[in-house]
Structure formats: structure tokens, C-alpha cells
């Protein structure tokens, strides 16, 4: 009697544990990880864009076509990931995402697409190698960033440094 109770308990425990593992596998990753991932990706892009901006202002001569293409590729990559970066449950907590991302999702996806298009064009222009065209296109990429920030990102503290 006692023995079968122990076995029964053991089976039950294993079953519960397994169910837990399966549930864990299907559950959303910790929302904070996604928030950190997308914020870091955007910060990285901000770094690339800032390098490109410094070049576009005519101050820098070391920049090669290859780095411009690499930066553009990173921006294209992010633009393709953006649609998946904002799953349900990542709209609260340490995020500056506005609810409009979910409320006007089609507009949001269109803004992400525009970033992809302008960045793709930057890679193309960089391949062709016309300096004036590259600098002009860098400005277009920046505008595409702003096109998403205004409707979909909460205003950040204006530490405009």
C-alpha cells in the first residue's frame, strides 16, 4: 500500500514537472529580454546612424563604402525584425513603446518597411559610390527613423547631447 502511494506520488510529480517544462517552452520569453533586445538593437542602429551622420555632414574622410554597406545591412536587418520585436506583453514596464504600435499596427509596419527600403537604397547607393548621393540618402534613412519615433515612441527626456 505504502509503496504504491510513493510510486503514485512520484509519477504525479514527474507529470507535473514535465507539464511545467512543456508550458515553459511554449510560453513567451521573459518580456524584459525582448524589451532589452529591441532597445539595444535600436541603440546600435543609433550608433551606426550617428557615424553615418557625421560622415554626411562632411567632416570625416576615413569612411569606406564597405562600412557604409555594413551599417546599411544592419539597419535592413533590424527593419525586418521589427514586426516581431513587439509581441503581446511587451507593452508595459521598462519600455518607451507607445500603445499605438498595437493599435495602429499597419501604420507601424509601414514605418518599419520604410526604414528597410531607405536602408536598402543606401546600400545600393554605396555600391555605386557617388558621395553626394550617399550623403543625401543617409539623411533619408534618418528621416525614416524619425518617421517611426514620432508616432510610436514615447518622448524621451530631451537630453539632446
Amino acid at each position, binding site marked *: 500500500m505504502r509503496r504504491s502511494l510513493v510510486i503514485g506520488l512520484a509519477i504525479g510529480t514527474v507529470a507535473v514537472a514535465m507539464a511545467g517544462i512543456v508550458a515553459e517552452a511554449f510560453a513567451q520569453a521573459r518580456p524584459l529580454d525582448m524589451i532589452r533586445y529591441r532597445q539595444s538593437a535600436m541603440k546600435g542602429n543609433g550608433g551606426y546612424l550617428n557615424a553615418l551622420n557625421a560622415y554626411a555632414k562632411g567632416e570625416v574622410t576615413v569612411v569606406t563604402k564597405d562600412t557604409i554597406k555594413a551599417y546599411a545591412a544592419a539597419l535592413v536587418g533590424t527593419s525586418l525584425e521589427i514586426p516581431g520585436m513587439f509581441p503581446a506583453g511587451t507593452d508595459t514596464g521598462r519600455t518607451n513603446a507607445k500603445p499605438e504600435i498595437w493599435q495602429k499596427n499597419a501604420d507601424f509596419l509601414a514605418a518599419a518597411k520604410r526604414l528597410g527600403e531607405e536602408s536598402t537604397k543606401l546600400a545600393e547607393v554605396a555600391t555605386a559610390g557617388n558621395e553626394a548621393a550617399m550623403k543625401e540618402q543617409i539623411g533619408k534613412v534618418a528621416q525614416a527613423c524619425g518617421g517611426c519615433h*514620432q508616432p510610436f515612441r514615447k518622448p524621451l527626456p530631451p537630453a539632446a547631447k
Partner: protein
Amino acid sequence: MKDGDPMTATPANVVLKGLASVFAIAGAMLAAAAPAAAQANADAIKRGEYIFRAADCAPCHTDTKNKGALLAGGRALPTPFGTFYSPNITADPVNGIGKWSDGDFTRALREGVSPDGSHYFPVFPYTSFTLMTDQDIKDLKAYIFSLPTVALANKPHDIGFPFNLRFLQVGWKMLFFTEGVYKPDPAKSAEWNRGAYLTEALGHCAECHTPRNLLGGMDRSRWMAGSIDGPEGEMAPNITPHEATGIGEWDDIDLAYMLKTGAVPGGDVVGSLMAEVIRESTSKLTDADRTAMAKYLLSLPAVDHKIEKPR
């Protein structure tokens, strides 16, 4: 017609002939004048479009968020005094400004008074537009009147007592409004004066970037030094060249580039309402004009005014 024909010799005929030639000349002049007038109007519309961009009229007078028609109004403008709804300024004769004369339009911008004599609330930045030249105001009207009309009625403002009392605006104007066209400073360069005109008269930058007192008047001692309660509850940064709290680390190239693209030297691209200003206004100006604005702004007195939300 033979010479000495008795028919042509009568005084009446002489008069008729004279009149005929007067009409012929007048007709020819009119025929020549019509295309000239059309050309003049086309030129005014073209100049007016640039003024329209520089003055950033479209965003406030268009309810873009709800896919409203251009200049048909209805955009909610939340302020500490209540929510205003921008009016329809298309040339629709019933709902818009289609019946306004040039004088009506000038008075609205210069004096902040509507054709029926009532005073505008300063949410309409006539406080800046008063600095515009007559020519620019006329051209702006020509452009607005060339755009499609929209028959959309105005939405009443949603503001509480006592701010809803329009006659109080007379007192507000006495306290906070100085009427008059921009007077160039002869001691400064043409570029500086152009920048001042673009920034203060057309761009009306100070309306958001200068802190306001409890009655909504702009604090002249902290011009462009930022505001924690800007439009829609957003903070407007200090854009004086103060090293620690303003944009003292920027130069005119940085600032002109930001006005074109939205990108700030730190790597971010501005969101907030400034993104709208860049998209609809400053990105459409010439490089020379953006540079003039940048140089003007960086020539202003640096004001130590840290902009952050109280926690």
C-alpha cells in the same frame, strides 16, 4: 472710306471712331494683362507654398491622426487650459476662410482678430505671425486659396471657465502681445536677419521652446530655454546655446542637419512633435535657410534652464 466723306465728317462719328480706338487699345491691354495677372498669381502661389512650409501651417490645421483632409482642421490641441480644436482654413466659403479678404487674413495673422472682430486664443501663434511681412501674408493666402476646399464644420473648443471667455483675450494681449512686422537689425548680417525672420516670424519656434507663465504668456527672460509643459504634455528642450542645459555643444552644421533630417549629434533621431515639424516644415526649406536659422539660434543668449520632468 474716301477722304472728305460727309458721313465721317460729323462730330458724332469722330467721337464714335475715337471711342472705338479707345476700346481697341483697352481690349489689347486687357488681353495682355490677363496672362500677366495669371502669371503674377502663379508666382504668389509658388512663394506662398514656401511660406506655408516655413510657417508649418499644415500639422495644426490637419487632423492627420484621424486621416483628416489637409487644412480642414479638427486636430485636438491639448493645453493646460483645455483642449482646442484647430479650425478649417481651406477656402470653403461656409466652413473655411473662403470669404475672407486679404485684409481679413492679414488682420488675423497680424492682430489675432477674426473677421467678425473676436479675439483668437494664443494657441494660434499670431504672437509670432505678427512679425510676417505683408507680402508673405498675401502670398500665403494665395497658396491656401489654391488648395482644395473641404466642407467640414469646425469643432467647438473644450476649455473651462474662465479661459473660455474670449473678451479676456484683450487683457492677455495687453500683457503679452506686441504687434508689428519684423524689423531687421541693421547691425547684423543679412543671413542673421533672415534666420531671425524664419525662426521668430515663420517658424514660431519660441511658441513651444519658451517657457510660459501661469497665464500662458511667454517668459521673455528665458527665450527658447525650453518648457516642461509644451504642447500635448511633451517637454520642449532648451535650444539656447547653453553648454550644460541647452545645445551649446552643437554648431550650426549640427543644427541645420537636425532641421533637415531629425538626427541629433548624440545618435538619436528626434521623435515627439519635433519630428512633425521636421517632416512638414524644416526638411522642405533650402539649405541656406536652415543654416540661417541655425546660426540665429546659436547667437541667442545662453540660458541655464534644465528641462526635466519633476518626479
